[in-house]
């Protein structure tokens, strides 16, 4: 099967702490931190959006892939914060990478799983022989409604993957998708912030679909949790991926390398994809990685990867995920954060 031939991550440098948000809304910071297993989240600068982060993550992926961008046959950005309602993000990315005009582009959405569906489509086109290389990006700069629980976690980041049949870094051994119509989290057109069903987002939504996809994937691949070195689940908060891992029979040490959320927040369509880039940064040849994303509405995409020898050659051709996460951080006060995230009503 084809696989990932290059991968890249991008995380903005700004952060805001749970305490800073809690202070403004009169909430109890320690209980949020404990309940969510979350300390701080990334915040995009006003000049960053899903497109800009996708470009930078994709450039890193290209550096690792070492291919001519003109050979990319498809470009997909999956996000729930595309800058335009109508005008593709993918065309800006394709132009910036010099992949135009012989390229298929589509913008994808499915809450937090829009990134992995792009990966599934790009992989499938390569597998079918329709294109030589395909690029899929999961990126978001999502908004959390002020004072809502999701404000503590809604963060920004991007992860990009190029798929191909040669120069493989992580071969795809199996895929599986699981979806039902479950309205746990949504945003109507013209609404600025999303809404959600509170505790309904747990068992009937996240846990049902992640475990459904994980079990389906394991059955299809005829594998068990202990076969894997690493597993990455969608990370809406620190607790859910640890709990679902436990439910499925995974150990914490398999989850931790890709568990970025406590210091990053939930990067939505970038969430499990960034967990994957962080894992690839440290994985060794022949190790198996499982990825299960989750998108509200609801559905999960699952992948089984086997790392190849080539990982050691390409890993350091672009910044590592944890480096982007830990280095050069700047902490914002709520006022600056609100200004950057356009939560302040201005004169028209």
């Amino acid at each position, binding site marked *: 099967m084809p696989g990932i031939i290059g991968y890249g991550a991008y995380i903005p*440098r700004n952060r805001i702490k749970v305490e800073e948000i809690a202070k403004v809304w009169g909430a109890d910071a320690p209980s949020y931190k404990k309940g969510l297993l979350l300390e701080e989240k990334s915040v995009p600068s006003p*000049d960053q959006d899903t497109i*800009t982060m996708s470009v930078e993550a994709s450039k890193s992926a290209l550096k690792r892939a070492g291919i001519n961008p003109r050979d990319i046959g498809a470009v997909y950005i999956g996000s729930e914060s595309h800058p335009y309602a109508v005008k593709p993000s993918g065309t800006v990315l394709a132009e910036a990478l010099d992949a135009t005009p012989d390229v298929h582009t589509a913008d994808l959405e499915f809450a937090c799983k829009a990134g992995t569906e792009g990966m599934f489509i790009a992989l499938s086109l390569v597998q079918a022989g329709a294109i030589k290389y395909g690029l899929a990006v999961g990126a978001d700069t999502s908004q959390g409604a002020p004072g809502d629980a999701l404000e503590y976690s809604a963060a920004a980041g991007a992860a990009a993957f190029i798929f191909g049949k040669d120069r493989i870094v992580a071969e795809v051994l199996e895929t599986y998708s699981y979806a039902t119509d479950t309205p746990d989290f949504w945003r109507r057109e013209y609404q600025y912030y999303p809404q959600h069903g509170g505790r309904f987002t747990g068992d009937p939504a996240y846990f049902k679909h992640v475990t459904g996809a994980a079990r389906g994937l394991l059955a299809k691949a005829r594998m068990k949790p202990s076969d894997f070195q690493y597993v990455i689940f969608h990370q809406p908060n620190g607790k859910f991926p640890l709990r679902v891992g436990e439910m499925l029979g995974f150990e914490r040490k398999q989850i931790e390398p890709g568990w970025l959320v406590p210091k990053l927040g939930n990067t939505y369509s970038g969430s499990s994809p960034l967990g994957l880039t962080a894992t690839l940064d440290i994985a060794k040849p022949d190790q198996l990685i499982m990825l299960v994303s989750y998108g509200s509405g609801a559905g999960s995409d699952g992948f089984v990867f086997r790392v190849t020898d080539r990982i050691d050659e390409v890993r350091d051709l672009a910044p590592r995920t944890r480096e982007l996460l830990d280095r050069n951080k700047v902490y914002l006060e709520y006022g600056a954060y609100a200004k950057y995230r356009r939560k302040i009503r201005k004169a028209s």
Partner: protein
Amino acid sequence: MPTPSRYWREIPQRYRLEAEKCKGCGLILFPPRLVCPACGKREFEKTKLAESGALFTYTVIRVAPEGFEDQTPYAVGIAEMDDGVHLTAQVVDVDFARLKVGLRVKVEFRKMHEDGEAGVIHYGYKFVPE
């Protein structure tokens, strides 16, 4: 704010730093032109600018022109790129105290401005510290 056609026309430069090299004297022109200002020749070959360089001047803008009001204060500078070309851009993701002649910078893709809430979004290059 540039109109859609004015913006679109410069995309190869703004997104990809596409430049041209004079076949007569080797001068790299960014943006490309019809006539080489150094030797007057009119034949060029395509090239791309280097993506890293060092600032040889900079300032921090505190009073903005129309369209940039929400961005103040923001730093701008001119860098000599590693291929000798001089490039003007904003300098972001940097504490102003770190700005100095000689600061190494590299190019990053960023949003430049928006034509209001309903207009086209303009993208381009900015400098970040290397």
